[in-house]
C-alpha cells in the first residue's frame, strides 16, 4: 500500500501531496508575512536614505543626538542604543532556546525561555519609550531661520555645545500661549518655549563667548562653526526658538530627521510591542499545556520566526539610523 501511494505521487506532479518547500502551511505563511514586512521596512529605510542623500551636507550627526543613558549624566554616544541592540539579541537567543526546548518537548524549559524572551522585549520597548521621551524633550535648544534651517550654539571657550538657558536673558516678557480657551476659538498655537526668540537673541549679544553652529557639515565631518561676526549676522535670520522635537521641527537639524526617527523606530517599536503580546499569548498556551496536547511546539517556532525578524530589522535600523 505504501509503495503504491508513493509511486502515484511521484508520477504526477499535479496530483498533490508534494511538499517542495518542506515547510508546514503555518510556517510558510509566517515566512510570506516576514518577506512582505521586510520589504515594507526596506521601503522606509530606502526613503530615509533618499532624504539623507538629498541633504547629505546638512543631515544631523546621530552621534551628537543620541548621547544619553538613563541614570547617568554626561555624553555617552551610542552606548544606550548598543545596550538595546544587545537586549534584543539576547531575547532572540532565549527565543531560539525555547524553540529548541519545544522540539525536545520540555514544557518547563519552554515556559522559562518564553518568559525571559518576553522580559527582554519589554525592556527593549521601555528603552525605546525612554529614548523617544529624551528625543522629544531635547537638551540644548536651537533657533530656526526663515528657511527652516537650525542654528545651534557652542561655547567658544570649551568648544562644547551651549544650551540656550545657559545664556538667554530673562526679560520678563509677558507671553501667553494662544490656546483655544484664551484666543479665538479656532486658533491653536504651539507650546511656548522656555525663552522667547528675543530673550535668546539678547542673551547671545550679551555673551561674547557664544558662537553659532550651522547644519552644514565641513570636510572634516563636523558641523560648521561660525565666527562671532558671522554668528551675529546669521542671528538676524532666526525666526523662532526650537526646543526638542515634534513632527514639524526639531532642534537637531533637518526636519525630516525627526520625522524618520519617529516613523522608523516607531514602526519597529510597534512590531516589538506586538511581538511581546503574541509571545505572551503563546506563553500562556504553553503553561496551559495546549502544545503538549497537540503533540508539537510548532506554534512556538512560528512566533519565534516573527521575533527573530524583529531583531533582524533592528540590526538594520541600528546601522542605518545610528551608525552610518
Amino acid at each position, binding site marked *: 500500500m505504501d509503495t503504491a501511494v508513493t509511486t502515484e505521487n511521484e508520477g504526477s506532479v499535479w496530483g498533490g501531496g508534494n511538499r517542495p*518547500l518542506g515547510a508546514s502551511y503555518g510556517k510558510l505563511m509566517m515566512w510570506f508575512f516576514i518577506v512582505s514586512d521586510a520589504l515594507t521596512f526596506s521601503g522606509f529605510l*530606502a526613503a530615509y536614505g533618499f532624504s539623507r542623500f538629498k541633504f547629505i551636507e*546638512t543631515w544631523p550627526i546621530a*552621534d551628537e543626538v543620541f548621547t544619553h543613558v538613563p541614570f547617568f549624566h554626561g555624553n555617552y554616544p551610542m*552606548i544606550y542604543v548598543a545596550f538595546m*541592540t544587545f537586549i534584543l539579541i539576547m531575547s532572540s537567543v532565549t527565543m531560539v532556546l525555547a524553540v529548541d526546548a519545544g522540539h525536545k518537548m520540555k514544557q518547563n524549559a519552554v515556559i522559562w525561555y518564553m518568559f525571559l524572551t518576553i522580559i527582554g522585549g519589554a525592556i527593549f520597548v521601555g528603552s525605546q519609550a525612554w529614548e523617544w521621551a529624551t528625543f522629544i524633550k531635547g537638551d540644548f535648544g536651537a533657533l530656526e531661520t526663515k528657511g527652516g534651517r537650525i542654528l545651534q550654539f557652542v561655547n567658544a571657550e570649551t568648544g562644547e555645545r551651549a544650551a540656550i538657558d545657559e545664556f538667554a536673558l530673562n526679560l520678563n516678557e509677558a507671553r501667553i500661549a494662544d490656546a483655544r480657551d484664551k484666543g479665538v476659538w479656532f486658533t491653536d498655537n504651539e507650546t511656548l518655549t522656555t525663552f522667547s526668540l528675543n530673550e535668546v537673541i539678547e542673551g547671545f549679544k550679551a555673551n561674547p563667548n557664544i558662537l553659532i553652529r550651522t547644519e552644514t557639515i565641513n570636510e572634516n565631518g563636523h558641523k560648521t562653526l561660525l565666527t562671532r561676526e558671522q554668528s551675529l549676522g546669521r542671528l538676524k535670520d532666526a525666526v523662532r526658538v526650537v526646543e526638542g522635537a515634534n513632527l514639524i521641527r526639531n532642534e537637531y537639524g533637518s526636519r525630516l530627521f525627526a520625522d524618520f526617527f519617529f516613523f522608523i523606530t516607531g514602526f519597529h517599536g510597534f512590531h516589538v510591542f506586538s511581538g511581546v503580546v503574541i509571545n505572551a499569548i503563546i506563553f500562556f498556551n504553553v503553561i496551559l499545556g495546549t502544545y503538549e496536547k497537540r503533540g508539537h511546539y510548532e506554534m512556538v517556532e512560528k512566533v519565534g520566526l516573527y521575533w527573530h525578524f524583529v531583531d533582524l530589522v533592528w540590526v538594520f535600523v541600528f546601522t542605518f539610523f545610528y551608525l552610518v
Partner: protein
Amino acid sequence: MAHAHKLEIFRGLLKFKSNTQKIWGVLIFLSIVTAVEVVLGIIKPEFMLTTSFAGMKLLNWVFIILTLVKAYYIAWDFMHLRDEKAALRRTIVWTPIFLVSYLVFILLFEATYIYDVFKSGFLAWDF
C-alpha cells in the same frame, strides 16, 4: 523542520556538539560584531573616514558589511534557514535582495540628482 540540525558555522570551521551550544556560539559571535560596530562608531578611525571606496566612506562600508554578516547569522541560525530546503531559503532570501537593491539604487540616484539641483541650480533653500 526536521529535528536534525546542521551544527557547523563558518563553512565547517566551527562545529558544535549540540544545537544549544551552537545558539550560544552564534550569540557570542553576534555580540562581538556589535561591539566592533559600536567601538568603530565611537572612535571613528581617521583613515576610515578619509578613505573612500566606490563613492562611500570605508567606515560606512564596514558598518554595512558587518550588518549583513549579522543578518546572515540571525536568519541562518536563529530562524533556522540553514536547516530548511534550499528552495525555501532561496525564495525567502533572493526576493527581497533583488527588490531592495533595485529600490535603493533608484532612490539614491534620484536623491543625488536632487542634491545637485539644490546645489547648482538657482534654488535658495538656506536663508
